[in-house]
């Protein structure tokens, strides 16, 4: 997962103060400052309408920023037409040219650049070998399966060695198995060819699997940009905590803050110690975020005072094979989820009164939801 071997600290793309509005009233992208490093796999992740696709389109040149500037290798490209940017792009529905063969499709970016016929032949053959579709060179896109078309679209976007490759939800139309296979294939191409990739998706699993870094978009703003593990383990606000993975939310009011720790009085009684991440002063509201797998269920009082402990009623046990999901009624959250490792639910029955226990540093105090 660590892309440090490939990604450098050299910046390839820089967004500075970029805004975008389509109707002159609402900003789809509110204020974007983003550095994309050379050689990294950066994913723009967010719900639909969050501005991630608009950001990609501005980078590709199909949309012009309303304000701000975009630099590609230190050159401003805001007013540069797309065909001069030297950016490869893979589209959601592949956009393979239906009237050309696979070979002609892949040759297209080379022939418009005036590459010699012999060299085109050589490079197209190499590109088709790379995606293992050399035997289908003379077919038309309509005769290929979705996965094959997607690989051709990849080859076409890579064959001219672009400085940057953009991918706009390229796997959205594929079924689950093929999608997982293609994720690994794209990852492999990224690593072997040292590509810089900007990838747009709304599928967090895909983002976690493939990315060196993920920029989480919501409401036209980058909420957090970080490595996948950091995003999951250390979300900086409630949106990220709830968007990436499962999270239990407990609402309350800040009592006091001390050396990075905060005491929170829950709305429905009880107090909890949490990491002070993103909160106001004493008296302000906060939402606590706890991952389901970081919580233990105790049937009696263990007396361990380093743990937060809350009374709860077990309402349901859902068996999921590799783990079991316990649903509990706790103060502040009637549907508190706890992930129990396989076999750890022995002796629990729905309706039982229990305690949930979690460490203060697994509990993050964030902005109120």
């Amino acid at each position, binding site marked *: 997962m660590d892309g440090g071997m490939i990604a450098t600290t050299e910046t390839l793309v820089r967004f500075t103060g970029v805004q975008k509005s389509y109707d002159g009233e609402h900003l789809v992208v509110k204020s974007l400052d983003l550095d994309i490093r050379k050689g990294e796999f950066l994913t723009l992740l967010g719900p639909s309408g969050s501005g991630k696709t608009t950001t990609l389109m501005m980078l*590709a*040149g*199909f949309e012009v920023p309303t304000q701000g500037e975009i630099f590609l290798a230190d050159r401003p490209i805001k007013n540069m*037409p*797309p*065909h*001069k*940017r*030297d*950016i*490869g*792009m893979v*589209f*959601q*529905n*592949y*956009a*393979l*040219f*239906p*009237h050309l*063969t696979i070979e002609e499709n892949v040759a*297209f*970016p080379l022939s*418009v*650049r005036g590459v010699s016929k012999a060299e085109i032949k050589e490079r197209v053959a190499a590109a088709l070998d790379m995606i293992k579709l050399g035997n289908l060179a003379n*077919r*038309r*896109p*309509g*005769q*290929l399966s979705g996965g094959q*078309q997607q690989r051709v679209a990849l080859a*076409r*976007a890579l064959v*001219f060695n672009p400085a940057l490759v*953009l991918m706009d939800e390229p796997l959205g139309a594929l079924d689950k198995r093929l999608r997982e296979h293609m994720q690994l294939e794209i990852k492999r191409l990224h690593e072997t060819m040292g590509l810089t990739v900007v990838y747009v998706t709304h599928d967090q699993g895909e983002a976690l699997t493939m990315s060196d870094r993920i920029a989480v978009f919501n409401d036209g703003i980058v909420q957090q940009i970080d490595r996948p593990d950091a995003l999951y383990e250390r979300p900086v606000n409630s949106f990220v905590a709830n968007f990436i993975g499962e999270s239990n939310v407990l609402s309350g009011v800040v009592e006091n803050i001390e050396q990075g720790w905060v005491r929170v009085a829950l709305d429905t009684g009880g107090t909890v110690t949490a990491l002070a991440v993103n909160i106001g002063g004493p008296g302000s509201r906060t939402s606590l975020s706890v991952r389901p797998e970081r919580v233990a269920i105790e049937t009696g009082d263990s007396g361990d005072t380093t743990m937060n402990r809350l009374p709860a009623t077990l309402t349901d046990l859902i068996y999921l094979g590799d783990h079991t999901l316990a649903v509990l009624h706790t103060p502040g959250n009637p549907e508190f989820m706890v992930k129990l490792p396989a076999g750890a639910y022995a002796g629990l029955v729905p309706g039982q009164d229990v305690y949930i226990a979690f460490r203060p540093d697994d509990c993050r105090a964030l902005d109120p939801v």
Partner: protein
Amino acid sequence: MTAAFVAGADVPLKRRLKRSERARQLRALGLVMPLLAFLLFTFVIPLAGMIWKSVDDWEVPQVLPHTVAALEHWNGQGLPDEAAYAALAADMRAARDAGTLPVAAKRLNYVVNGFRTTLLSTARKLKEQPAPGTAKETLIGLTPAWGERESWTAIKSASGPVTSYYLLAAVDLTRNADGAIVSAPEDQAIYRDVFIRTFTIGIGVTVLCLVLGFPVAYLLANLPTGRSNLLMIFVLLPFWTSLLVRTCAWIVILQSEGIVNGSLQWLGVIDEPLRLIYNRFGVYMAMTHVLLPFMILPLYSVMRSISPAYMRAAASLGAPPTTAFWRIYLPQTIPGIGAGCLLVFILAIGYYITPALVGGAADQMISAFIAFYTTETVNWGLASALGAVLLLSTLVLATVYGKLALGRQTTGGLKN
């Protein structure tokens, strides 16, 4: 187990499937039956009748039956024997009394100019049946033309039951006295020019429609739905207006005292009114206007289905807009261009009213001649033959288009 079950069924699976499908097929047939019957009576039968008329040669065998029978064994060399003359004399007298002689005279006049006079005047002068053995000299005595071989070959060539005369005439060919196919005499050879003119106007109008319609269709296909619907109404508005009204509107606009000439003169661009109508310019103008929707609609429907992602993909791959247009967009519109051109061309070569109203004498197309022969001279044979040639060329075009369109499909389809 399964095999035993299938074998146990006494009716083979194929037959059972057929039986179960039969009801559905019958219902489908029932649904299209009224239309099929309608087409049969209003289209297929009249069309077959028209094509038959272009080869049907009924006049002479019906009016001069004995002559036709007597000439059956004449080899076309020298003059026929006495029996043929006697039969002709008898036939002429009978036809004169029955009043049917002009029918045959008209038919024979197509073959030999002036034959009408020959036949009618001989019949008039022939008071009574010549005595046996004197028919030949009597007839030659009455009209010397009966002593010429051409008169008799004319009758033989028109003695049916079918003739290639009309079809040959429709392409400026004829048969000489020996039956060989030769070019028609200069003064009768007009149809090739008319066909060339018809196809020239057809091609011209098609090209104009394509050049004018393509950008409009592109705009329509790429505007947001609301505005494209509004624009579509403007395209369809002329479509819903009567052809005659639109053609007359062009007369009003283009005539010497019309709006265009008036404006140009008022602006001082011209001193004398330009001749904009009753010539080829007027024909092109009016026909292009009338036929434009037939080009725009198929183009629009094809362009609508071309995803804008293709042009974006081309740009992202490094193609400047013009390159992307020529190499990516245009080839994908070819089915629409083909359909639109075929439609406009086929409609254009059959045009009658518009060239008749806004064209000059030298701008009349083949339909005008067909109308002339059906309504003015009642020469159904030639009218049908001209129609048949027009139909044939249309069918050839449609077949070629079909082959091309099908060829594209089998090599991979246009959509993925």
